[in-house]
């Protein structure tokens, strides 16, 4: 549960050091021990070792610490098999493949339910109804039309640090230094940059090489399923999409994690298969 790597990087040493609480507790076990009265009272009901261990246990529970869950944002249960510890704060995420938008909506859904804000820069086409169906709270969204390339960087940088999730879908090709700067700002401020890559024509990952995304998620083998198939390819409606989500990047096993899921499921919510 503890994201030790993240913790050691972000916390001052004195918080990390395993505290040795209550070292001043008297250890002598003599019946006429001259420890403080409270210790004596405790000793009368439980052995000193039990007292110390229970106190240490309590100290462990109440000490200030940063849990991995605080350093990361939760994701919906269907995505937990590819992202067991959620989305790490301060990371950059690249999303690609047919269905990248559905995946992006599914990724932010849980965080918005936990009151995180999402800024969407340059994707005016994002389907809000689909987002709501996936569980996104619309009152947590801020939508900005694609700004011109000169101000794109400053607009995104304004949101990084101020909101938890920044979803960008640049229509232009941001420079490497700009992306590197944004990634550094994310790391420093704890926001997550979701980079929606355009279709196959955009060699997005290559252009992200400088600030290669910490995590790249792609949707592969997406097929829509209809209900009540009839003649000539007719169905009653499109019911769900079967797709495989592949997660690669930092902290992932070689070859990445894969999971087959319904993205979206019949009710719009992504579901695990």
């Amino acid at each position, binding site marked *: 549960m503890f994201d030790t790597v993240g913790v050691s990087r972000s916390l001052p040493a004195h918080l990390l050091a395993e505290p040795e609480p209550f070292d001043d507790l008297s250890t002598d076990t003599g019946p006429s021990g001259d420890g403080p009265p409270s210790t004596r009272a405790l000793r009368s009901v439980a052995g000193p070792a039990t007292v110390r261990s229970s106190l240490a246990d309590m100290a462990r529970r109440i000490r200030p610490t940063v849990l991995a869950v605080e350093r990361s944002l939760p994701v919906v249960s269907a995505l937990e098999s590819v992202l067991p510890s959620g989305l790490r704060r301060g990371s950059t995420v690249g999303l690609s493949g047919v269905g990248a938008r559905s995946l992006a909506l599914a990724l932010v859904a849980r965080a918005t339910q936990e009151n995180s804000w999402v800024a969407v820069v340059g994707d005016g*086409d994002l389907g809000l109804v689909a987002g709501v*169906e996936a569980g996104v709270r619309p009152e947590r969204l801020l939508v*900005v039309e694609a700004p011109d390339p000169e101000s794109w960087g400053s607009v995104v940088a304004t949101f990084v640090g101020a909101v938890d999730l920044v979803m960008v879908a640049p229509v232009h090709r941001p420079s490497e230094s700009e992306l590197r700067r944004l990634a550094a700002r994310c790391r420093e401020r704890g926001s997550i940059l979701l980079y929606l890559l355009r279709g196959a024509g955009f060699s997005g990952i290559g252009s992200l090489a400088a600030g290669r995304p910490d995590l790249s998620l792609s949707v592969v083998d997406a097929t829509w399923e209809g209900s009540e198939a009839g003649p000539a*390819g007719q169905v009653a409606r499109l019911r769900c999409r079967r797709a495989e989500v592949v997660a690669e990047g930092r902290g992932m096993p070689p070859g990445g994690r894969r999971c087959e899921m319904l993205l979206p499921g019949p009710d719009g919510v992504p579901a695990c298969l």
Partner: protein
Amino acid sequence: MTGLSEIPPPRILVVGCPDWPLVALGVDPAEPALVLSGGRVVATTPAARSFGVVRGQRRRDAQLAHPEVRVLERDVTREARSFEAVASALGSVTPWVEAHHPGRCAFGVRGPVRLFGGEAELVERTAEVVHKALVDLSGPDGRPNGGGTCRIGVADGMFAAVLAARMGGPAPREAVVVPPGGTPAFLAPLPVGLLSGDGCSPEGGGIPVARRNLVDVLGRLGLATMGAFAAVPTADVAGRFGAEGLAVHRLAAGLDDRPPGHRPAPPDLAVSTSFDPPVDRVDRAAFAARMLAESLHEGLSRRGMACTRVLVEVETGHGERLSRAWRDEGALGPAAVADRVRWQLEGWLHGPPAIRPTAPVVLLALVPDEVVPATGQQLGFWGGATAADEQAGRAAARVVGLLGPGAVRVPEWRGGRDPDDEFALVPFIPVDDGSAGERVKERGATSGRTGSVDEGPPWPGALPGPSPAAVHAVPVFVALRDAEGRPVVVDGRGNLSAPPHWLRVGGGREEEVAVWAGPWPVDERWWDPLRHRRRVRVQVVAEDGTARLLVLDVGRWRVAATYD
């Protein structure tokens, strides 16, 4: 009763110009017209009011009340510029004019009343000066603007004076002058709802949300009038409602909302910046003003103070000095100060020649004129504005500053049959009272859908879910053909001529249709020949797995959305 021994607040004269956003735009009051800001009505002409168009309505509701009403967009810059002419004309009555927002200003009665020999004379003279300024005010095309009237109210304390000005008729004949010491009696029969803000300041004024909520509670407690609330013992109010309650209680009792003790700010809190080369453009000066406002705010908050009145001063290359005081009921935040400076510069630099400085500006100074202890803000644990909401609101406001108004939008649920109808993106309005995050939430909270399930009445004919993740604002036309290569058309009953087999998107190559569903015909607003919309929707999955929503509208198929 509250401190009977306390000295009543100073007598104040308030000059209010009703419907200022319309007057500034040069609209004839006899014409039904309204001014919109952020999709809501912010001002109406008397003619429009007589049809039931009121402030706070949505455009749609206002047009329902009066279909031919003229709809105008708000132009705050122009309001500020025109109002500066009025405020500077009042300089002949008293030098201590303080502006509240474009459309309202005030000054203390004590000095000028001796000059003119009585309050009645002062009111008469003030009305005369303002009328002259209003007549001189020219409309957009240079034609004189006779629409503006002014209201004048005199009372002990700013709050009562503002209400007096609102309740009176055209000055000077119907000006409301509350006799000295008569403020509590004047306020007593008025409803408590008036305590939650005067409702005529721009963007709802600096009234914190907490106060609006508090006043709401008072009404539900059965304290319908200010007199009833003022009769509640002060200690009980303080015990139940805290500092905010106390402030409102003081207002209702005819006192200033803060106990006396406004102190003049230490001079070192004033901030200034000099321009080299001198500037004559508002945007450049306003840019500097923004940073200046930030540093002013920082200096104040370091001492635990907030500013309720700020003096904007400029010095020009010819040594002219211009200054104007701006006041706000709530404390002025950095964005609010920056706005006021921009309005003021607009008024001076683009105003009528009589008040326009003869040389570019070399120095801009902000002097906090009246400071109060900052009460700070308690960040909520549950509900209310959290730090994250505040931060998001501030970032959004900054982006609006970068890209211009309307750049940041928030979803609002409207309902509809198509994925692009169901949510509308409405402009995010940065509110300068520091509760921007809260306001965003309020806006967002109006969206009826909060979960994955539908709430509210159903929309028959809506598409079945799941919904497409990409809804195209710009339509892409497609050719849809059947197996024989004939275009797929729809008959009068909404049936397809043949199953679709070939699909060509834009100028792309022909793709085979693997799976399709539909059609879902919709016939909307058939009773209205102008807005009648008839269309047929079909879901089509191409052989490469891309699923699209196609819409047949006025004889052409287009991609309305992609199931991305």
